[in-house]
């Protein structure tokens, strides 16, 4: 493993910084000017057995209350790794990556930054491979279904630090797991820190992995993240990504559909304000036959934030019967925010169904007027429209608590951090029990011909 670190460092030193295109919003360029050398890597946790209060608190409010495992990384060290007895007995392994290198060297050597996120994918993955520390290793043996989610928290609280957190998940044949990773920070001062995270997911035959990530880092943290899943036959992955925090984020999320019949789903939500910068890059890489992918990203920008979205559907030659869909919708709330959306298609096979769609727009004045004419003040009307915009994608998020947390965060962000009792989400999901159809009720479904009777001109 040391060899790999050195090799990665060499690669990092040689590789140029990716700079993006001329005329883009410049997120890659600001990363290339980032003073990595001023940061301190390997800041160990100063917590000995006792979790810092902020972390203990956040565990109380964690996205997952009923869980089958827990891992907490505080700065560069994993301070907690717990797994239910039942799962241990079934051979599930949940441990920090350092221990895994020692205890399961074969597995780690075979899977760590090899096929899923190769260390030499980019300059930044090489940096990660050279400096990784802490991290989570999760191994699920054949046929084991983990029903309650496993929660992983990554906490940063040291100024000017660099944390390189790695998550390696191997789901053997016919197994399944729900994994939730939260990224948070509580760092004093304006000095920037860095969280570099790599997530590698190996999905074997007919296994299923659901990975949710909530990134709510402070404004003094920069983050670079690479997430990828590789699939064997009939394997499937669901990525759920919620990005709210961090000053600057460079994220790559991929599904590699090598196995025939494999499938990937990506649901992403973001909300940026102040001068946040995001570059979000997704890749649906279709290699095997009859693979499916769906990418659905929705985001709202305000303040002077900037978001670049680059979504690629790549269908390799021989990847016949691919079905792939990608959509990215962005709503701009302020005059000074900017969004750029570049969906791309590269199709090398000829029996393919692939489509993409992207929209960027502002709140419709007529919608706003409509709500205001119903007595609702402008700010609240805007909030209702934003909620309605997010709702369809939120409903795709399987984890109830994550949905609730996101709604709350979005409402908070839109009311400048002030929360009042009734600032609750207008939840389209709240359903009334419909007490049957009234005896006298007339169906609202008036036959479609009505539009034909346009009014005669006088």
């Amino acid at each position, binding site marked *: 493993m040391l060899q790999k670190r050195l090799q990665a460092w060499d690669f990092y030193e040689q590789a140029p910084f990716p700079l993006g295109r001329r005329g883009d919003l410049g997120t890659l360029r600001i990363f290339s000017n980032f003073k990595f050398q001023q940061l301190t890597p390997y800041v160990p946790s100063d917590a000995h057995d006792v979790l810092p209060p902020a972390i203990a608190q956040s565990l109380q409010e964690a996205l997952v209350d009923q869980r089958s495992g827990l891992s907490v990384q505080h700065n560069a060290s994993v301070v907690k790794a717990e797994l239910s007895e039942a799962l241990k007995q079934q051979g599930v392994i949940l441990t920090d990556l350092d221990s895994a290198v020692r205890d399961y060297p074969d597995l780690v050597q075979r899977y760590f930054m090899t096929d899923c996120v190769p260390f030499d994918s980019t300059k930044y993955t090489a940096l990660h491979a050279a400096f990784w520390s802490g991290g989570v290793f999760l191994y699920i043996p054949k046929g084991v279904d983990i029903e309650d989610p496993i929660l992983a928290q990554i906490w940063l609280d040291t100024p000017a630090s660099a944390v390189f957190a790695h998550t390696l998940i191997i789901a053997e044949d016919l197994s399944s797991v729900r994994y939730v990773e939260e990224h948070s920070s509580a760092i004093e001062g304006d000095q920037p820190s860095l969280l570099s995270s790599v997530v590698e997911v190996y999905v074997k035959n007919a296994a299923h992995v659901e990975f949710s990530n909530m990134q709510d880092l402070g404004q003094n943290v920069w983050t670079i993240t690479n997430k990828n899943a590789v699939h064997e036959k009939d394997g499937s992955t669901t990525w759920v990504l919620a990005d709210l925090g961090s000053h600057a984020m460079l994220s790559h999320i991929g599904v590699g559909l090598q196995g025939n019949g494999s499938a990937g789903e990506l649901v992403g939500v973001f909300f940026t304000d102040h001068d946040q910068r995001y570059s979000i890059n997704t890749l649906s890489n279709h290699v095997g036959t009859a693979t499916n992918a769906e990418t659905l990203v929705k985001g709202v920008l305000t303040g002077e934030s900037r978001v670049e979205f680059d979504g690629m559907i790549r269908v390799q030659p021989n990847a016949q019967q691919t079905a792939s869909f990608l959509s990215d919708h962005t709503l701009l709330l302020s005059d000074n925010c900017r969004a750029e959306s570049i969906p791309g298609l590269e199709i090398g096979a000829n029996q393919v169904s692939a489509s993409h769609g992207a929209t960027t727009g502002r709140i419709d004045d007529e919608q706003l007027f*409509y709500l205001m004419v119903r007595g609702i*003040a402008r700010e609240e009307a805007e909030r209702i429209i934003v909620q309605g915009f997010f709702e369809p994608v939120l409903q795709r998020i399987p984890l109830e608590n994550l949905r609730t947390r996101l709604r709350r965060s979005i409402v908070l962000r839109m009311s400048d951090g002030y929360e009042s009792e009734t600032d609750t989400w207008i939840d389209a999901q709240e359903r009334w029990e419909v007490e049957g159809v009234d005896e006298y009720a007339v169906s609202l479904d*008036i036959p479609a011909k009505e539009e034909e009777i346009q009014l005669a001109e006088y």
Partner: protein
Amino acid sequence: MESELIIKNLHANIEGKPILRGVDLLVKQGQVHALMGPNGSGKSTLANVIMGNPKYEVTDGEIWFNGENILEYSPDRRARMRLFLAFQYPMSIPGVSVANFLRRSLEAVREGNKPLEEGDNPTGKATKRKSIPPGEFRKLMQEKMRLLKVDNSFINRSINDGFSGGEKKRAEILQMALLEPEIALMDETDSGLDIDALKIVSESVNALRGPNLGILLITHYQRILDYITPDFVHVMYDGRIVLSGGPELAHELEAKGYEWLKPSDEENGVMVNG
């Protein structure tokens, strides 16, 4: 005291182009006024200007409601004074359910005509009103839906999203029933409806009619007036009300059209407004 909507010499532009050229009108609670006129005469503009649509610029005149000049008020504040507009083209708002939206709306309207108080919270932003308990709201909705014979499933859908033309119009009437306005402007509520839908919508309006509701019913087609008998009929032409009368005026217009009303001289328009 009964509410009054008084419009005096109202002039309004859209993108610099004059649409309203001096409208005078008085609508009292309990009365039904029909406002007729050809396409482009300014009827819808009038409704939008009364509600404060920022798309239009008021260049002259006044709008008084319940003794206050509301011209500078925001649309939501006008609504909270219990002015209502049933839209000709109701907007759809995907992802927001009718039930939740209407609860917010009712809470706001019940709050009444106060500018939202400021300074009670750290951001200095408007404080939020009290919420109506879901049970109470549900009961009220059920009652109104029964009155208007609206199918219960309607309540769980997103606002106007995927509604047919007829459904949108009925949803507007349902909102009107719920919010109990003192004066309601109904902008071409009859347009795009077939005869059955028109009957249903008219019956709903008639069910709401009473001493507490004044209606300005905007239409350019006499048909709806067969079902809703107005107390007064006004005819708008080229940005002015050029003729006013009783319900019989509607029939006269049906027979004669609008062309004969064309003022021979711009400055000498026929003014018969009482």
